[in-house]
């Protein structure tokens, strides 16, 4: 089966600019996750979707971050305006159910804010 696709792979932007990341999960996976991984740290959950509904966005900085999952398939994560501390790898993952058997991750987008 095809894996979780993410794009772009790298992105460099200036602070206060906006950026968007795209994720296409494994076909049939109902649950989609966006994680932020700052250098030297473990991934931190930003938002979790079940189909096209949000089930957890408690750690999403909603003043600047937004995410949507259209038709319960693809998802986009947006940052506007970006700050220096947003520099990180943004990982997308999916699971068929609620993740009891683990997630399948994409290769992530490395964002550098200068």
């Amino acid at each position, binding site marked *: 089966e095809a894996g979780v696709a993410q794009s772009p792979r790298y992105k460099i932007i200036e602070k206060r600019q906006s950026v968007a990341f795209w994720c296409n999960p494994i076909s049939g996976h109902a649950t989609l996750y966006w994680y932020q991984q700052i250098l*030297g740290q*473990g991934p931190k*959950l930003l938002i979790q979707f079940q189909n096209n509904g949000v089930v957890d966005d408690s750690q999403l900085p909603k003043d600047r971050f937004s995410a949507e999952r259209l038709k319960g398939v693809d998802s986009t994560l947006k940052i506007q305006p970006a700050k220096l501390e947003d520099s990180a790898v943004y990982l997308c993952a999916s699971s068929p159910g609620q993740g009891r058997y683990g997630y399948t*991750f994409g290769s992530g987008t490395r964002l550098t804010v200068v």
Partner: protein
Amino acid sequence: AQTVTQSQPEMSVQEAETVTLSCTYDTSESDYYLFWYKQPPSRQMILVIRQEAYKQQNATENRFSVNFQKAAKSFSLKISDSQLGDAAMYFCAYRRLNSGGYQKVTFGTGTKLQVIP
């Protein structure tokens, strides 16, 4: 809140030798899941092994096995016959058992494993 601690930022092992990566976690739950993920330089997190807390038997996947000590809240990963391709960041992770809602996975800070030829 659940926390996952990996006290070894870096480890090294000779090729073909055995290495053990440590993980401890804090929880008040009795039923949960534990995972080890591998993240090579390609950045893609790959599930290595999974353990259900209610199972006393330690999980094993080929050269990878765990030592699950529930009372001590310890979940170490043993890699036998280490190969160059095992070099990566390894993350320990915890997830509560379903209780009618959606449960997120909490990751540790990772251990960087170097394999020496």
